[in-house]
């Protein structure tokens, strides 16, 4: 081979090597880019599915939460109905109590004595409803006279509007202890509700 031929062959061989290198580099580079793109796309796709799952869980949680709320309201409503029914029966039975002398008179006596003691005066005025004033005042006078000793009880001739019980006041009317059945029921209502709830709904 002549020197010239050898020289030109070298030029071409060098060009071929460089060409191979250019192509190889392009292949390597694109393969790397492809791999990186795959990772990135996979992440993007996973994020889409993950977000959908998260949204779906939120939808389910909201539906369950709404159901819980509906149940709670219904439960509250049902329990309230029963409680109100019980309180209404107690109120009715309390009103009926005044017709049963054997139970009512001792109760009325205790209510008056309690009011008198709470007031603490030597002379007190007791106010009753019309029926008690007509039918029970004298009987009460005897009973109370025994138990209160030194305290002088006066009976107001003006009847008060109440189911039963009494109002005990100082003679000038400035201090009043209201021991009527209506007031008693009202004062005890919260306690009655707590007792009723415990009695009706405890396990």
């Amino acid at each position, binding site marked *: 081979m002549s020197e010239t031929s050898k020289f030109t062959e070298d030029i071409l061989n060098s060009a071929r090597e460089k060409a191979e290198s250019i192509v190889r580099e392009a292949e390597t580079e694109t393969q790397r880019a492809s791999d990186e793109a795959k990772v990135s796309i996979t992440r*993007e796709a996973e994020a*889409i599915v993950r977000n959908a799952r998260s949204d*779906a869980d939120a939808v389910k949680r909201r539906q369950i939460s709404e159901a819980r709320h509906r149940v709670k309201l219904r439960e509250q409503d049902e329990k309230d109905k029963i409680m109100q029914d019980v309180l209404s029966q107690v109120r009715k039975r309390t009103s009926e109590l005044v017709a049963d002398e054997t139970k009512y008179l001792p109760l009325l006596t205790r209510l008056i004595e309690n009011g008198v003691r709470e007031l603490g005066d030597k002379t007190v005025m007791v106010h009753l409803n019309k029926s008690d004033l007509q039918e029970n005042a004298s009987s009460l006078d005897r009973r109370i006279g025994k138990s209160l000793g030194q305290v002088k009880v006066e009976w107001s001739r003006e009847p008060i509007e109440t189911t039963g019980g009494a109002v005990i006041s100082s003679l000038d009317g400035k201090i009043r202890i209201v021991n009527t059945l209506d007031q008693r029921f009202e004062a005890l209502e919260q306690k009655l509700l707590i007792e009723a709830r415990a009695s009706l709904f405890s396990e």
Partner: protein
Amino acid sequence: MSGIETVKIIVDAEKQAAKIIDEAKAQAAAIRKRISALVQEQRTQMLTEAKREAADIAAHAGEEGKLEAEKFESESMQALQAVVARASRRKDATVEKLLTLVMQVD
């Protein structure tokens, strides 16, 4: 071989070498372009698939949630009915207990 002929041969070889390299560059550009298109296609395909799966999940979520909520509500209502029935049985005793409290004067 004359000097001019030698130079001509070398120039031709240089031209051929340049052509080989140009062809290689064109091939490299084609490879890059092809891969880029392939990646784009793959991206579209995978994301479309992911979006379809997401849509399926969303569609079922409402139904699953509804079923779970109905099941919960039904079970809770049964439990509530039992509570109400028990409370109803205890009503009379409770009324008596509260009456005692109303009549109890300290």
